[in-house]
């Protein structure tokens, strides 16, 4: 994956959390995802299409998700309720939308409506032909990760883990 696709997500997550939640985010070293680990309890998932295709996932442990959603909504919402899922979906929507606006050399990228998965220790499996970069994030409300598995439309697919590590 082109590394220039990662920086926009780092900037966007910090912008969204700072502006909507007044919550600073410390971003740690991005890593290539291995299998379906790490596992999480709450995931917001959004698809990208157009000049860039793939999937963006914002994943939390339950406690972190509850604290962050409470800050975002101004009230504590029960994990797993429709309103809770709506808030997680809106967060991944804003992060993805903000990031795609920062992509360079791409003319037309669309994002899908978000989906939200809630379930203890779930993993999200992604197509093996696109490397997935995990961006670990730390806040005063707990930790979470952004998983970015995207590539230019029409670009060659990655067949091996070595290729993925070389291009991340």
């Amino acid at each position: 994956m082109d590394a220039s696709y990662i920086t926009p997500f780092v900037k966007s997550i910090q912008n969204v959390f700072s502006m909507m939640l007044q919550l600073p985010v410390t971003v740690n070293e991005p890593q290539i995802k291995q299998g379906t680990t790490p596992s999480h309890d709450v995931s917001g998932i959004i698809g990208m299409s157009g000049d860039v295709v793939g999937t963006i996932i914002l994943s939390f442990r339950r406690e972190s998700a509850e604290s962050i959603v409470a800050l975002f909504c101004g009230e504590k919402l029960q994990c797993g309720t429709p309103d809770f899922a709506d808030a997680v979906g809106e967060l991944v929507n804003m992060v993805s939308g903000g990031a795609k606006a920062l992509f360079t050399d791409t003319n037309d990228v669309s994002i899908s409506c978000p989906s939200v998965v809630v379930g203890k220790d779930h993993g999200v499996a992604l197509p093996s032909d696109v490397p997935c970069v995990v961006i670990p994030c730390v806040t005063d409300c707990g930790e979470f990760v952004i998983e970015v598995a995207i590539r230019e439309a029409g670009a060659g697919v990655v067949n091996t883990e070595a290729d993925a590590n070389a291009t991340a």
Partner: protein
Amino acid sequence: MKVMLIDDSKTMRNIQRSVLKQIGIDLVEEACDGQDALSKVGAFAPDLILVDWNMPNMDGLSFIKAFRKQDRTTPLIMVTTEAEKSRVIEAIKAGVNNYVVKPFTPDLLSQRINETMSKCAA
């Protein structure tokens, strides 16, 4: 003043509703997509509409195009994650009066609302 909020996210509608309340606007109707909005807008007759872009069933741009065929004057503000210049131009061509990119601060949204209402009243 009456405001219609069109967004598929209830969270976002609640955030916008609280900004409107802060600037003294309590008469608010909500719609969860373009189709829902078209079915409500005639009866509610809003003075201002805030509309998201990406929504299921009917997106914000399609709503604006349909709405502008029947109403060319009610102010419309697009409130969306779509931040690219090409999208802003597309929305303006379709008939929006102002544009707010998510994420936004309450101050920014209220400023854009006041600015839009002043321009449209002039």
